[in-house]
């Protein structure tokens, strides 16, 4: 470590200035705009917390909020459980592991837009989901998955989970590398069952990964936009409306910038706890 020469200051300040100008400054602006009524023309009119009061009484917003909670739990829960089980199954090198891992990884490189279109094909009335149900003799279960408000959100969620599991699996595979196998062997010798060894020995050693996965999943869930936009645009009847899609529609379709910013601020406030959690963990690993 030594004193800081001018070139090094430039090295730091150029990227920092860019981030301040295009990330932090806009973010601060959003807070201000959320306190105004503004259609983008002329000056914003200051209205205090009125947008937030209106949000509290807005049935679409409430629906989006409820859907988002369902999304966090359903998308987060399913992809974490499946991703972790897959990591446990594919942890040790043996024949076929490389192939199986690649199969699970591959969807995660597709964009959420592409994933959404893939699954629109699968969910189409004559698509393969209904086709498969027909083959299995479950013809009664056939549905217009994305057009039916009672199934649309879950249908989109399944598509998102299909893509996300590979990512969660990567994180757990990395975490499992840090698990000390001798502890488990010792427990096995002492007669601990697989179930006990997993919960008492492996899980506690995965605490760090769990924290990261939890924070990443919640933050991702709160900003989920693309896949819903590609599949249903929040419909039918707002049944797949999430906070992000409602925010986007309010801001860019109905051009109600103050109200849209208020939704964005709500998303931020919901996310900030988990962002701080993630940062706390990141700061610890930097030591």
């Amino acid at each position: 470590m030594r004193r800081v020469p001018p070139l090094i200051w430039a090295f730091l300040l150029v990227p920092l200035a860019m981030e301040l100008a295009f990330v932090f400054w806009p973010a601060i602006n959003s807070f201000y705009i959320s306190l105004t009524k503004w259609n983008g023309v002329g000056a914003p009119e200051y209205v205090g917390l009125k947008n937030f009061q209106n949000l509290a009484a807005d049935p679409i917003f409430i629906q989006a909020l409820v859907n988002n909670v369902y999304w966090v739990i359903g998308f987060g829960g399913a992809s974490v459980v499946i991703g972790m089980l897959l990591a446990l199954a594919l942890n040790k090198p043996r024949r076929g592991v490389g192939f199986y891992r690649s199969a699970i990884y591959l969807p995660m490189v597709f964009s959420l837009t592409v994933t959404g279109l893939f699954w629109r094909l699968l969910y189409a009335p004559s698509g393969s989901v209904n086709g498969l149900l027909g083959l299995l003799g479950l013809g009664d279960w056939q549905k217009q998955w994305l057009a039916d408000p009672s199934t649309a959100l879950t249908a989109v969620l399944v598509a998102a989970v299909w893509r996300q599991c590979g990512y969660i699996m990567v994180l757990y595979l990395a975490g499992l590398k840090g698990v000390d196998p001798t502890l488990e062997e010792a427990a096995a010798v002492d007669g601990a069952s697989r179930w006990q060894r997993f919960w008492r020995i492996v899980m506690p050693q995965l605490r760090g990964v769990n924290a990261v996965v939890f924070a990443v999943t919640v933050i991702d869930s709160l900003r989920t936009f693309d896949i819903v936009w590609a599949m249903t645009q929040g419909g039918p009847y707002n049944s797949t409306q999430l906070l992000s899609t409602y925010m986007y529609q309010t801001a860019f379709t109905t051009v109600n910038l103050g109200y849209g910013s208020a939704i964005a601020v709500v998303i931020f406030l919901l996310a900030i706890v988990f962002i701080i959690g993630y940062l706390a963990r990141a700061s610890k690993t930097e030591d």
Partner: protein
Amino acid sequence: MTTTDLSHSAAARSEKTHKRHPWVFHAYMAPISLIWIAPMVFVVFVAFRSFADITQNGLGALPHSFSWDGFATVFTGGLVSQALVNSAIVTVFTVFFSLLLSSWAAFALSRYEIPFRRVILLIMLAGNLLPAQILLIPVARITDSLGIADTLFALILVQVAFGLGFYTFVLHGFMRSIPAEIFEAARVDGAGELRVYLTVVLPLTRPSLAALAALATTWVWNDLLWALTVLRTESKFPINAELLNIQGGYVSQWNVVASGALIAAIPTAIVFFVFQKQFVSGLTLGAGK
């Protein structure tokens, strides 16, 4: 649960079980990976079927035809070739400048006594964790008032700025692990800051840069939200934004939609297969192992 290798134990007993019954492992992993692959195979089938085949035999049926019609329509009916060029431009520039600028910041923060460097690093990372929604409206306004709205330049600028924090954080962790002696040796040889950066830091950071580059390429290529926010003219759309137009224009022509989705997916799939190792290690870099 009883047959699965849930505990991934190295215990001798289970090792033996696996050697005796490798089929148990495959008996559950083969169907699972089939579930993962099946949607992609289905889309490939649809993309290469003719429209007549789909309407006659149903979308879910096995192919009775082989046709390039879907792809032909995608390229003639939409602006897909333009969109692919736009995506390539945006991806190349965004990835290059993201890594360049973040390697600068990471070098400065990791090797020099900059006041509050830890706080600065965490604040930079925090910027990348913000939900993009909090930025959309002001970013659209700012690009407007700078006169760069609806340009690929603005899209690149915004994505570089938004990604910087994460890349800086990852590279910082890596640069800190480079032994101080290497830097001392370079300085004894009379190397200035720039020389150290170019001849010591960059070569040693190459594995991390490669991993981040693989990752960033797919992230930037896959973007939709920033493109929708910054761009208005269809001829400037990158591929994922253009895909939504194709879907809107060819709602019931499933072979066209499938072809378009495949075209958008293939470049990232190539990056994945060629750089799988870098890609996977890139994903875990940021997870604070």
